[in-house]
């Protein structure tokens, strides 16, 4: 084994791990405020990326195209929440999961009509690399890591330093009690969907230039992001980021040191291990009661 290529394995894992983490944050935000596992989360990523492709192809500068695409994602997120809020009595976790799977299938079909089946890309950052601790790191990776850190920082400020963010946490903690101090949980849930869709759209914008995007990328990305959220602990959005990075690094190291045949398997093997030893995730609180 050539050990000096290990930094390269780690760098590759870090970049994609950050993206899994961003998608995982979306799962976490929505789950905590509304107890819904939103499998359409991956579609926000696809729509964010492909919308930017279309807008830049229509000769809009990226500085305009990106905010427009994010706005479109945010609108989709709000629309999804409005749709889910029409659910009838008797709905439970399972029916919400299935509803979001239905939405994901429909959105994917629609994406196929809008953008076709080819994978697409646009230029966001110039091609180029820097050497970092023995690894070649491209600008795309650096942009992704910077953007992920920025999102985390902004999210932290939002959740811990603004009144509305605190209200959202309060709602996740005890939505009944939140109502008694004037917080409207439905607005918080809407906000969570909007934020998740925005973050998902951003993840799409970040990965499309370096990794391409096609209409059917949503489900695999959603599953990886969801796995990241579970590994990190669904209750904690920052845990999801760490979970994503852990998954990414495991993938990178697994491909490098063991075999590239198993690339997709590493994430799920680690998920199984986590479920066995720490079902609440790395940073989750022990919420899962043991059945006796």
């Amino acid at each position, binding site marked *: 084994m050539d050990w000096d290529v290990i930094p390269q394995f780690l760098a590759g894992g870090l970049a994609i791990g950050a993206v899994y983490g961003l998608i995982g944050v979306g799962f976490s935000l929505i789950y905590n405020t509304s107890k819904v596992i939103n499998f359409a989360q991956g579609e926000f990523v696809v729509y964010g990326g492909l919308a930017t492709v279309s807008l830049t192809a229509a000769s809009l500068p990226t500085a305009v195209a990106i905010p427009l695409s994010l706005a479109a994602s945010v609108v989709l997120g709000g629309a999804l929440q409005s749709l889910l809020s029409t659910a009838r009595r008797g*709905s*439970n976790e399972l029916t919400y999961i299935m509803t979001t799977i239905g939405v994901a299938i429909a959105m994917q079909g629609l994406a196929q009509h809008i953008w076709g089946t080819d994978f697409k890309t646009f230029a966001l950052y110039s091609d180029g690399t820097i050497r970092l601790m023995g690894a070649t790191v491209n600008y795309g990776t650096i942009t992704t890591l910077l953007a992920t850190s920025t999102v985390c920082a902004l999210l932290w400020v939002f959740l811990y330093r603004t009144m509305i963010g605190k209200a959202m946490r309060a709602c996740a903690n005890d939505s009944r009690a939140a109502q008694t101090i004037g917080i409207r949980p439905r607005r918080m849930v809407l906000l969570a969907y909007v934020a998740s869709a925005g973050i998902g759209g951003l993840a799409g914008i970040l990965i499309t230039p370096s990794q391409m995007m096609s209409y059917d990328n949503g489900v695999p990305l959603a599953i990886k992001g969801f796995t990241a959220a579970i590994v990190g602990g669904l209750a904690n959005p920052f845990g999801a980021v760490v979970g994503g990075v852990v998954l990414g690094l495991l993938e990178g190291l697994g491909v490098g040191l063991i*075999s590239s045949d198993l690339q997709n398997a590493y994430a799920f093997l680690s*998920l199984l291990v986590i*479920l066995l030893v720490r079902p609440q995730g790395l940073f989750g609180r022990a919420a899962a009661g043991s059945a*006796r």
Partner: protein
Amino acid sequence: MSKTSGWSGVGVRQAPVLGILAAFAAIPAMSQDAYVLGVWTFLLLNILVVIGLDLLLGYAGQLSLGHGIFVAIGAYASGLLTTKAGWSGWAAMPVGTIAASLLAAAVAVPTLRLRGYYLALATLGFPVLFDAMIRVTSQWSGGSSGVISIPRLRLGGYILRDPLVYYYLVLGVVAVVLIVLWNLAGSRLGLKLRAIHADETAASARGINVVFLKASVFVASAAIAALSGSLYVHNVQFVAPDTFGLNYSLILVIMLVVGGMGRIWGGILGVVLLGWMPELLREAATWQPVIFGSILATIMLFAPNGLAGVVRRRSFFAPVTRKVPNTTFHRDERVLTVNEIEKAFGGVQAVTGLSFHVDAGEIKSIIGPNGAGKSTALALISGAIATDGGTIKLCGQSVETAPAFKRAQLGLGRTFQHARLIPTLTVYENILLGASVLGSATQRDEHQASHVLQQVGLEHVAQHYPDQTNQYERRLTEIGTAFAGNPRLLLLDEPGAGLSSADIEQLASLLRELKANGRAIVLVDHIMSLVLPLSDSVLVLNSGMPIIDSDPKTVISDPKVRLAYLGESGDVHA
């Protein structure tokens, strides 16, 4: 099963399933076109998987998102053993089924200990893991290219090639599995699974080994799925790793929830509808995913229980009339001994140093203000939560580490503060579930349940579902459920709450009757008009600690009790 046990009309009971099978048997009469038969054969194979999945998801409430790989295991076992090892397809079939069962058991043991959708998370990655496994073993598994030239099944010298013959072969297998599952679903096992689905704590309190049953059902559904895979592969003669991947697994669940889970015919309806939908949507061509997704979302939003959920389940069970003698226990036998038990929740001491005992034919009441630890004490004794310390003896056996269902089987029956009936079962079925606490499936249970139904005076609502009854009836059902299993010890948590004085009077006489035939009762209640006249002794808890344990008269005149109830300035006088 004798004719008196609710099986009286075997024909009636089997009618729906026989009707379904007859309809499928008639399909070739309408068209023997190989394509049409081929579609129906695939639908039957999917039905096989989906009714197994229904047992898991619809009955036991456990979601498997990677169920397709069990189909794949069956398919690969048959495919590889016939092509590489020259086995007969018939011999390979059980190998796949056993392999799938073993894998299911291995996954079930760790994940099904946990509540919630942990099985779904664990199975989510199955398709990917399976795919990777096939690829690393490509020398003998065929890798991504799959297994080709898989021979058809043979019967003697006859090759099962004719689509019509194969259709009936698959239908025959479906018929066997369907009839078994139908009767299982309608049996007491079905009741138990529904109970697990609705409320695992209540199910444990009724003596159900929740983890074991969930795991068994998962294993059974995996075996059925593998069987379907074997039958598939001898028809198509080819299998690749992605044939039964994530998409297939998701579609299985979608067919089930759209059709309506927890109802065997719901799954069948889902498979047939969604199976033929692409045909109906041909004009829409590439819009199919959009329409399909929208239909799924719409059905889930507006009919969360699926299409079959629109119709209420009809109960298989009806009360019988024969009486059984009351079981009487020896008096003065020590039934429960609680010694110094403790429980803290996150630093708050909920119960401290609680000791008491109850004999057969004795009613011991526990009173105290809200939050004094009464319900916690009952939960500790019944095993719903674990103690931090102390010992509990039930009929002479130490049970402090035994799970709730074990304690129930040893003769502990309990009710919950807020009646925890199984909403998907009728009043009679709820009581029957309680009567089947030992897991026996004898007629005695049905007689016993019918008798209890009379005792609590609920015959008029026997076939009602809990949400169709009033609060008093629900309370009585809960109590009936608790003592239908002939427990030595009954723990009743606020049975009088919310009842009128007349109802309370009736409740009291029921409890007297139970006491008279030698049951030990621990009664927690606030309603002194119920507690005081009935109790042999009263234990008062305050802030998790016992302050007095004596006869009712002594207790009510004790100043400490008044202090506990009425606060420090307990100078209120009658």
